[in-house]
């Protein structure tokens, strides 16, 4: 093979070399002509097709058509997409049996933007049904296994996306976050997850859970990949009236220090109830931040302990309205009956899983006559107080930092019997979506061999500053996430 040939055609890299590349590195090599995007796609496609973690609900059966342009900004680096994003002609089931086999007639804006920028669809990832869950055990298509320890959950609801990235079955992925569904699985799988400011990314074509909270965001191996993916996700979309033009462009973070950065540590979210091993990793990360020049002080978010209550009224209330559309008429499952209401009730009984039924019931109750003010009205006022707490804190601090999840990945089945115990997973992550602000989780180390996540939250539209700070911290932490990348998918060539 001549040198010029080798620059345009297959280099036959060993798969292990290819999956060692971060998404941004792979995109750069493709754009420089040093890597064939078809080879990269096939390497990941074959790994994803041999997925042993149940991370994927659908995997592409061949190369993308049309092939992405070599000079596209995302360099043909394949993308795993959470099942609830509508993808034209491709199963989009939101983890629910009520949508089994559903192939939508259109594609979500965020997915269309990313494929347009050169990140072809690799597969759809498993999730908790309609994004309701913190462990992925609520999927209608079986739980996802954590690649660090297959007897444990990957977190949720974007658990398939997180597990796929952590296991090197996908170079990067997107998910959605309503109360922590990007950040918490990212933490439990040892990867980076970012929930953008509400409105930064279009929700068009996302199968809705709680419309005032849902946001799409990246799940990636590192902060730079998150920035690169997010750059091509944000923007106003006339099909989503709540979307807003992002002020400026998402930049690739370069910062190596935190000089002059003020970090607030809220006692409400970083003390009681957090597992000792998680707290240890959190405190070690604070010391690293200090070493990088950050000023660290305690702060108060007095209403944060009530965030979970407000969230578990608002999210189920919105879900009960959004999920009314699953009625056996226009798409999905239908259980026949002689009478219309009977058909609705039977279809929904057969199609929804236990947690989805619980949240529909909770939301319907909270919105029903006589209870609306006590529940929904109160929750929306608590939400105002939570947003004010953050606003006050951001007058003194650049970012609020907390552990992402109170504990590391837990054993499959260990929390399914007690719904409220499961809801406590979201304790540190629900206040931010209630306030509409962005937050990122980065891996801060291991506790008993399991990843711990460190969360930074900033004011609305502070994504660039947030990514910069996370990048600096990531460098100081030096987390090695390569452990689970062997063995979870297809055999890695020598």
């Amino acid at each position, binding site marked *: 093979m001549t040198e010029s040939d080798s620059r345009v055609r297959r280099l036959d890299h060993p798969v292990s070399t290819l999956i060692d590349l971060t998404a941004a590195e792979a995109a750069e090599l493709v754009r420089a002509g040093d890597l064939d995007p078809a080879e990269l796609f096939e390497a990941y496609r074959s790994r994803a097709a041999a997925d042993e973690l149940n991370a994927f609900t659908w995997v592409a059966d061949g190369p993308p058509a049309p092939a992405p342009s070599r000079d596209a900004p995302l360099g043909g680096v394949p993308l795993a997409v959470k099942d609830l994003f509508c993808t034209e002609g491709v199963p989009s089931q939101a983890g629910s049996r009520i949508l089994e086999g559903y192939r939508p007639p259109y594609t979500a804006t965020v997915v269309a933007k990313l494929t347009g920028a050169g990140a072809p669809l690799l597969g759809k990832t498993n999730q908790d049904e309609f994004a309701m869950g913190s462990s992925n055990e609520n999927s209608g298509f079986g739980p996802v296994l954590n690649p660090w320890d297959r007897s444990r959950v990957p977190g949720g609801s974007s658990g398939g996306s997180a597990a796929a990235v952590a296991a090197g079955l996908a170079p990067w992925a997107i998910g959605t976050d309503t109360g922590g569904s990007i950040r918490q699985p990212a933490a439990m799988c040892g990867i980076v997850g970012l929930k953008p400011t*509400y409105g930064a990314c279009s929700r068009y074509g996302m199968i809705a859970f709680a419309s005032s909270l849902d946001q799409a965001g990246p799940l990636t191996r590192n902060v730079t990949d998150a920035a690169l993916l997010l750059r091509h996700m944000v923007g106003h979309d006339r099909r989503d009236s709540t979307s807003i033009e992002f002020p400026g462009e998402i930049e690739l973070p370069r910062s190596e220090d935190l000089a002059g950065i003020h970090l607030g540590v809220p006692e409400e979210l970083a003390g009681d109830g957090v597992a000792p091993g998680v707290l240890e990793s959190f405190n070690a990360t604070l010391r690293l931040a200090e070493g990088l020049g950050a000023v660290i002080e305690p702060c108060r978010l007095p209403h944060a302990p009530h965030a979970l209550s407000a969230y578990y009224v608002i999210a189920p209330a919105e879900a009960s309205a959004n999920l009314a559309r699953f009625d056996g008429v226009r798409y999905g499952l239908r259980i026949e009956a002689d009478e219309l209401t009977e058909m609705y009730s039977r279809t929904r009984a057969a199609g929804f899983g236990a947690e989805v039924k*619980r949240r529909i019931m909770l939301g319907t109750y909270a919105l029903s006559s006589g209870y609306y003010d006590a529940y929904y009205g109160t929750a929306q006022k608590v939400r105002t107080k939570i947003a004010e707490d953050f606003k006050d804190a951001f007058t003194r601090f650049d970012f609020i930092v907390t552990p992402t999840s109170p504990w590391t990945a837990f054993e499959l089945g260990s929390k399914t019997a007690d719904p409220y115990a499961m809801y406590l997973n979201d304790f540190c992550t629900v206040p931010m979506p209630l306030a509409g602000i962005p937050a990122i989780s980065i891996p801060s180390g291991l506790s008993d061999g399991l990843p711990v996540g460190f969360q930074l939250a900033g004011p609305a539209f502070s994504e660039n500053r947030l990514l910069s700070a996370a990048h600096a911290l990531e460098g100081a932490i030096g987390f090695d996430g390569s452990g689970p990348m062997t063995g979870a998918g297809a055999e890695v060539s020598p």
Partner: protein
Amino acid sequence: MIDREQVLHVASLARLQLSESELDRMASELSDVLGHIEKMGELDLDGVQATTHVIDVVNALRADAPEPSLPVEVALAAAPDEVSGGFGVPSPVAKDD
């Protein structure tokens, strides 16, 4: 607290048929979750404005002009029942027999 009768009423509002065992379990699980949620009632929220939208945006308006939309056959492609170019549903009135 929420009892079995209330669960039945809410389930009918939600168009959700629940089995006998689901009814009992739902009553106890919802009561437990509501017990935790109700702690927010301890807060003094007098005069606090309820959040309607977290980000400062104004109403999005557009011209009321027809635009191309999904062809009928595409919109109907996933429908469980199609009747003369529309979605087929069972009778909204129960049969008497």
